[in-house]
């Protein structure tokens, strides 16, 4: 099976109407058996809300996440579930403050109409205490679940401050994949990119290549991640990797400026570069369709 990014569709949809940025990507995810067993569905990916951040890159730091949640709640058809791919909170060296931020974030996220919400840590949440506080609020940092014929794997590449998945979790991944058919529909959720996107800015996972090697024998794998605060699409072999926009401040394109400082807030275009995506799993036609939304409504 092949996977391809349909650039014509991608360009056609960019900048339409109220949608600041939209993209359609094709990822072959289905097989005959799954097509019979599965229904089409969609889920929403939100990433990098960095609750607790304060600074000029976002003068509405306390309001942006709430606006995004209102926008998700305003979608005419509600998603089957929602995933947050890490950096729920902005880092703090104070463990008490970290827990306060996690509690506040959980309270705000509880306003989502959809109650099936999956949380994952980012390095800001978990790297300073190996995920201890995160687990107190949201449970395990890596896990799997199945939904309508798609096997989801949440991988933790942040609780180790060295940006390692670690041998123990890789063995867990290997054992889980051994239970999946080679043509199973697999979606991997993670925070950091599994491939070396731009190590100069720490946009990588030190042992991410080991995870990709384990995934390679499976023909239908798609990875959704955050961390880089912008949309980005990359293929490693037949595996598609899609980064999502963030919800606090956008970051520059990889290597486009000397430092990865946040892009400045633009009063003429507030919330530009911030948003979320829905992921439309069209299982019967073997496609995922991604649509990116701005914070202020769809």
């Amino acid at each position, binding site marked *: 099976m092949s996977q391809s990014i349909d650039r014509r569709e991608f360009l056609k949809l960019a900048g339409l109407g109220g949608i600041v940025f939209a993209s359609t990507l094709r990822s072959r995810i289905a097989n005959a058996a799954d097509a019979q067993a599965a229904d089409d569905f969609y889920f929403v990916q939100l990433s990098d809300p960095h609750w607790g951040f304060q600074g000029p890159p976002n003068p509405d730091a306390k309001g942006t996440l709430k606006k995004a949640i209102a926008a998700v709640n305003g979608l005419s058809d509600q998603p089957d579930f929602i995933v947050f791919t890490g950096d729920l909170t902005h*880092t703090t060296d104070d463990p008490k403050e970290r827990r306060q931020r996690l509690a506040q974030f959980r309270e705000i996220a509880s306003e989502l109409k959809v109650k099936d919400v999956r949380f994952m840590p980012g390095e800001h949440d978990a790297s*300073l205490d190996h995920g201890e506080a995160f687990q107190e609020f949201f449970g395990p940092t890596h896990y799997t679940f199945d939904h309508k014929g798609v096997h989801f794997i949440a991988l933790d590449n942040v609780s180790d*401050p*060295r*940006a390692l998945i670690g041998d123990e979790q890789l063995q867990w991944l290997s054992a889980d994949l051994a239970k999946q058919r080679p043509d199973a529909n697999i979606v991997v959720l993670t925070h950091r990119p599994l491939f070396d996107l731009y*190590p*100069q800015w*720490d946009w990588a996972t030190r042992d991410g290549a080991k995870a990709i090697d384990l995934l390679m024998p499976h023909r239908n794998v798609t990875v959704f991640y955050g961390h880089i605060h912008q949309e980005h699409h990359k293929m490693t072999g037949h595996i598609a990797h899609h980064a999502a926009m963030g919800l606090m401040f956008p970051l520059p394109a990889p290597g486009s400026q*000397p*430092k990865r400082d946040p892009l400045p807030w633009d009063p003429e275009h507030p919330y530009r570069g911030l948003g979320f995506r829905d992921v439309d799993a069209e299982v019967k036609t073997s496609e995922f369709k991604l649509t990116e939304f701005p914070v202020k409504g769809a």
Partner: protein
Amino acid sequence: MRTERRKLLVGLSSLVGLAAIGAVGAATQPKEKVIKILARKFTYSPNHLDLKLGVPVILEFTTADVLMGFNAPDFQVRADIMPGKVEQVRLVPDKVGNFSFLCDIFCGSGRESMNGTITVSA
């Protein structure tokens, strides 16, 4: 017995010869410059290195507080800098230009600005 003694002497003289060759080699090879770098929350000192193309250097790291990292991806050189230990890595500048290095271990808030540059001139 005499044969055994002769073999031993031949062996010893060979060893002495090899040691002499090694000493000559070491004497003719220029000693690589050692650059000491102190890592602390959230800076490197120094945070700018001027290197010459093709001239290897030894980077010698210590940390003033917690576990830190050093990663210069353009040269495929990285190190974990453990508290209380001295860590050395060899860097061979094989290209000219300005290159960044960073702490690739999440060592606290402020760590994202913990980086520096390497300038390699011809």
